[in-house]
């Protein structure tokens, strides 16, 4: 018995390390496994992939040169709009439409912001791109800058990613040397700068307006909307903010055309997508697949199935903030339409897999500890609600649960949902609602027995 356990543990450790290697791109994605795409991740795993020469050798900055010399900003914007590229930060707002909200023309000062504050639990796709292919992001930024005629871009990177910040800064320096940035980019007469800023370690600064406050040196608190960033953004200037992966898609669209782009994936999620799979799977990592791949395929074929060949219990399909799915709900397409049918969302496409050893109360408690810690404290429902969630779940898990706890959790979630300034309140309330309703029996059991029924079998803590 003891030997078997030890063996299992060793196996997990090895798999865990392998997953990390996958993250760093050292493992060739797709080798000996189900086929993945190599579009966004085309340079991942190449030797010296962060160098500008390597990037240009593979055709990089070609779309930029074409766009700057042969296309008007309107044409670039039109192409991105036609591609129906959707924001990859989680909200899936059409990027081209968002760009078109900015005031037109050269006359007004505008800024771009690149949201590299990737901190959603279960999501680690941007880090892969930043650390392996920074020039693709940078090229996308410059193209977006040209399309919107912006004066510059703030690249706000999570403070916990010092390596990424260093790599991206180096990429920016190289781009300045080659005149892709700076005064009169490639002789077009249009100036564009990129500034790299590091965050100070707050989940909330991934929210667009909190990010802007943080960037300005203020407390990272979301702003009241309206005004929206397109009217009054960073430093009070009209701004456009997108996720790293969104910008990284832009050169591809310009290079291959909107039609090509639309052919990949489904109408509600066109283009290639980076799915981050973590938790109890044999091969955790980033998988580039067309939008619309089924969740079952993602878990069982790409990620190698459930760790320890145990039964699946639950999946969070799009980063910790989206409603959780039961094991019988995984035969759906991983796009907004597909996930809607089971009441969840695609979010940032960070898939967290849990096998039958996971206690759902403990898992939710883990999430709520995170949200209670990360609530900025500005508005009442989120500040107090997340804390209350945490306390109730803690009590439930420790055996002090009461019969009415489930009802109470749902009622608090209702009072938080849609009552807050920014989506953090919703992000905390939605998992509570879904965990409790999907796994009501388990929650009730905790309260009824006065203990966690999975206490003995629990192997690892996920998330």
């Amino acid at each position: 018995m003891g030997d078997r356990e030890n063996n299992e543990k060793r196996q997990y450790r090895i798999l865990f390390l392998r997953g990390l290697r996958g993250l760093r791109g050292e493992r060739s994605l797709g080798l000996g496994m189900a086929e993945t795409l190599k579009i966004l991740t085309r340079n991942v795993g190449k030797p010296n992939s962060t160098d500008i020469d390597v990037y240009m050798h593979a055709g990089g900055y070609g779309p930029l040169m074409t766009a700057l010399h042969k296309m008007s900003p309107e044409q670039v914007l039109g192409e991105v709009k036609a591609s129906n590229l959707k924001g990859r930060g989680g909200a899936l707002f059409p990027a081209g439409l968002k760009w078109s909200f900015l005031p037109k023309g050269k006359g007004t000062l505008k800024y771009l912001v690149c949201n590299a504050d990737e901190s959603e639990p279960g999501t680690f796709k941007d880090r892969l791109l930043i650390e392996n292919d920074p020039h693709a992001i940078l090229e996308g930024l410059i193209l977006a800058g040209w399309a919107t005629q912006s004066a510059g871009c703030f690249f706000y990177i999570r403070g916990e990613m010092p390596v990424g910040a260093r790599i991206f800064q180096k990429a920016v320096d190289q781009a300045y040397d080659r005149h892709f940035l700076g005064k009169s980019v490639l002789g077009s007469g249009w100036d564009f700068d990129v500034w790299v800023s590091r965050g100070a370690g707050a989940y909330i600064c991934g929210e667009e307006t909190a990010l802007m406050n943080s960037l300005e040196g203020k407390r990272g608190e979301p702003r009241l909307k309206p005004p929206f960033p397109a009217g009054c953004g960073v430093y009070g200037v009209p701004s456009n903010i997108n996720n790293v992966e969104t910008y990284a898609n832009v050169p591809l669209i310009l290079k291959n055309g909107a039609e090509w782009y639309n052919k990949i994936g489904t109408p509600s999620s066109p283009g290639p997508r980076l799915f981050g799979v973590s938790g109890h799977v044999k091969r955790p990592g980033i998988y580039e697949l067309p939008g619309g791949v089924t969740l079952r395929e993602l878990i069982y074929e790409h990620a190698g199935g459930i760790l320890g060949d145990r039964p699946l219990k639950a999946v969070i399909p799009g980063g910790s903030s989206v409603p959780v799915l039961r094991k019988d709900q995984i035969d759906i397409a991983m796009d907004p339409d597909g996930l809607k049918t089971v009441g969840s969302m695609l979010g940032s496409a960070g898939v967290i897999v849990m096998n039958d050893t996971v206690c759902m109360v403990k898992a939710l408690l883990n999430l709520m500890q995170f949200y209670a810690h990360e609530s900025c404290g500005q508005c009442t429902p989120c500040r107090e609600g997340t804390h209350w969630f945490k306390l109730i779940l803690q009590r439930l898990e420790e055996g002090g649960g009461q019969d009415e706890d489930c009802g109470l959790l749902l009622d608090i979630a209702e009072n938080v949902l849609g009552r807050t300034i920014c989506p953090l309140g919703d992000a905390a309330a939605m998992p509570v609602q879904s965990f409790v309703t999907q796994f009501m029996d388990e929650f009730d059991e905790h309260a009824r027995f006065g203990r966690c029924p999975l206490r003995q079998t629990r192997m690892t803590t996920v998330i």
Partner: protein
Amino acid sequence: MPLIRIDEKEIEVAQGETILRAALSNGIYIPYYCYHPALSIVGQCRMCLVDVKGAPKPLTACSTAVTSLPPDKKIQGKYDMVVDTKNATVKKAQRGILEFLLLNHPLDCPICDQAGECQLQEYAYTYGSGQSRFEFEKVHAPKRVGIGPHVVFDVERCIKCTRCIRFCNEISKTSELTLVERGVHTRVDTFPGRALDNPYSICTVDVCPVGALTSREFRFKERVWFLSSANSVCPECSRGCSVRFDTYKGEVLRLVPRENPKINGLWMCDYGRLLSERLKTLDLAARPRIRDEKGWAAYLWEEFAPRLVAKTAAFTGSPSKDLGIVISARMTLEEMVAFKRLSAALLGGNEGWVLNVTQGEDDGLLIRKEGRPNLKGAELLDIPAAPENALVSGLLAGKKAALIVREDVVGDAEGPEKDALRELLSGMDLVIVADYAFTETAALAHLYIPLAGWQEMEGITVNFLGVAQKTARAVAPPKQRRPFYEAVSLWLRAAGHEAPEPTFLAWHALAKEAVPALKDKAIRDFLPHGIQLEVTRP
């Protein structure tokens, strides 16, 4: 203008007006904490959530602006917005927010100094659920933090509405406060190395809707429901802020600003507010006094007035070069009129100087450099003002007798001027001092007339903008301590002259005659915001 419907009421509001303002100005009450009419909108307490037709979730009334819809999209054919402030969704939202606010708020109203004027307490009764479902230890935080010389902060009671922070950023422009930490541990704090120390710091106590910020001077002095209040005017500079004197058993416990858009908005300075503390330190006399070889002796007015007349008999008739008169712009309009009457009847028509005492510069918000409230009133009555900060020893030089009303010229002077004044006054044959307190100057007098203090009498005062306001009797003085106009009535009568009744109304009628702009104004016209007089601005 967009037409909106809030509950059952149709309201026409200006484009861009918020729902909350529109509702409040039309008699529909929506509860709120972080909204404050003079501060920026942050929408973070979420108390003012209302149900707007067509919106997927409740919206904050404080930050949602009314916009007009195109004609074909109007709701029910005519409305640009339909708002419900009382339906089940809103009630649930309000109950939910209140429950959240009370989660970590101590439920010890009986020992909280804010009880009775606490918005949290009021809303908990009106909109709350009446019981808590929270069964855990509350988050504890420091109590009694002295964050400034006049403000004490109870961190546990704070509901993070950030009104105080916004006040310091936007009104006093001193920016001492900020939020620190996050989540439930979020708290208001001063920036490192700073204190909440600005000339308006106690205004943060006013804007605080709960008992988190309390004034060091007033906290735990008295339960607010025992206080008597009088709407009056601050006497400490020529701004003349509209204030309310809160008193208990004849003692002024605090001054709080009254809203007056013409003068002070919603604020007042700490110096004016702390008048209540300075009043406590004064040496007061309850009766008129006369000094002879044996020292001071107190008299009733009936005995005092004839002696006063006898002493001043020499100055009746024609103007005398020997008599110097210093009066103060701390006197109300009625008192100044009384002085003029007195001067004409008994002091040979001698004119007095109104001192113009200034200090520093105007601060651009409220505080004025002129330290006296009623300079404009003196101007209206053609009483000459002394040059700015003129030396009183200069004004009184060479005089053998002096009448000094409501100015502690010796006490206020410093250095050589003080010595000079002492010498000058000690050498005079007759010095009459009339003042609220028994001051250093009074100690050098031969006759002392105790006057009712600013808080003890009624009168009209005109501020530097020409707004005439009425002071009120917040506390009753002892019988023998009277306003100067009443003293003049008694003085005149003792001298056998005809005089108005020793009452405010009698002298107010004379003041109205003297100032044409006040002629057809009734007392009630002075409230709440005063009367703007046609005064030519310099």
